């Protein structure tokens, strides 16, 4: 972490103060909503997918600084990835991309990974129903 004073790295604070891709999406191809019952955080992730490639990702999140920053970061990491590549994104990768998270906040990155899994399985379910 570069910001040694507060609990969060500069990158976490940047994504928290200026979240990327925050908002809703009409008729998403994949929609995932996951929550953490312990702290009450909830993340909703919207995906626009064409020919197996994630073209756009948006999120809405209720939660702490780490929850919002990991939501923002995961949408950035998802864009342009294939479904197979996206499935390989782990919570550790999201946390690392943010220059780390305090140990007590690692579960927030799990929220991002679970949101991503939920949105992709929603997409695959919808696709299965169509074809």
């Amino acid at each position, binding site marked *: 972490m570069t910001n040694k004073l507060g609990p969060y790295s500069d990158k976490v604070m940047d994504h928290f103060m200026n979240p990327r891709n925050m908002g809703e999406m009409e008729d998403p191809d994949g929609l995932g909503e996951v929550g953490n019952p312990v702290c*009450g955080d909830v993340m*909703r992730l919207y995906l626009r997918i064409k020919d197996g490639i994630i073209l756009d990702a948006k999120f809405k999140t*209720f939660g702490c*600084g780490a929850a919002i920053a990991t939501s923002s970061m995961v949408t950035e990491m998802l864009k342009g990835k294939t479904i197979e590549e996206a499935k390989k994104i782990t919570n550790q990768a999201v946390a690392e991309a943010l220059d780390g998270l305090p140990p007590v906040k690692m579960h927030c990155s799990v929220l991002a990974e679970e949101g991503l899994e939920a949105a992709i399985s929603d997409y695959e379910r919808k696709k299965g129903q169509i074809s």
Partner: protein
Amino acid sequence: MRKIFFDHISTTPTDPRVVEEMLPYFTSQFGNPSSLFYEHGQQAAKALEEARAKVAGLIGAEAQNIIFTSGATEANNMAIKGIAWANEDKGRHIILSDIEHFSVLFAAQALSRWGFEITRVPVDSYGIIDLGALKASIRADTILISIMHANNEIGTIEPIVEIANIAREKGILFHADAVGTVGIIPVNVGELGVDALTLAGHSFYGPKGIGALYLKQGIRIDPLLQGGFQEAGYRSGTENLPGTVGLGVVAQIAKEEMPSRIEHLLILRDLLWRGLSQRIQDIHFTGHPTQRLPGHVSFWVENAEGESLLLHLAFKGIELASGSACSSNIRGRTEEDLAASQVLTAIGVPSHICTGSLTISLGKDNNREEVEYFLEVFPGIVERLRAMSPWK
């Protein structure tokens, strides 16, 4: 960037008048109060006893009943463990409230290895202890009741006189953690009827690292620290002389300035309370509306998380506290260290909602302009977070 400090319940700046009086005791007046055969030691002992008298004067006690400690955590541990150990032949049951500070709760829980049992008494939705439940929890082997005077998170002031009466009738010792009230509102140990009482310097513009336990005449405790018999053997260890001098000075100042400070805090608190009620939708104030600390406003807002509120406010230079699960124990090492505030849970705020809680604790140096600045920026921060929330 200018900083607005609204977290006086966590600590306060040391009054410069106090620092000035402390300084000689680091350098020229460096003596050890136990070294009574020469002047440096004699002067140190004199300063120590003068400070003790001033601290006693703030709470209506006799100087001989004040034991200096390293702070409130030590004083609370000393009271709980010291009274328990000294009375274990009479019984091993201790009663606390559901909203005690961790230094009371965990000190009591640590006694389980000596066979002590703890009962925690619930509070109502305002955070006031349930006196019926307190009476019902008393057993033949109850030796100690420990209830805080005012709660730090929700500002509620507990009915200490009633609790003391209940304890006295049953012959049970009563300790009050009065960190939130001593030096802030009038506290008189005789009028309250307590047997032991904890106070801390840094909660009312004194230095950190110094506190005291008031122990009523005739009450025995086993010391936590054994050694060279300082503090009448209750607390061995060379005294923190600059700290005790500082605590004495600040006690005297607090006593003199208390009425005007309270008046000032009540004006600011009402301004803050009214402004928040008018400007924030879905805001819920916590704690008792009238039986509360004068500079204290606590609340939670729906659909905005507490840590996120804190981070945005800090970005605007406003420093305050949250009982949010997400901001608790941020220095913890595992996720198990994260827990919703026990106080908010005790007053019946659902835990997933605890996340939106904030505590504003005003101080003597805050002013109207700072409160107005907060009221100006806070609604926008709440709106910004609500716009991000998946719930509408």
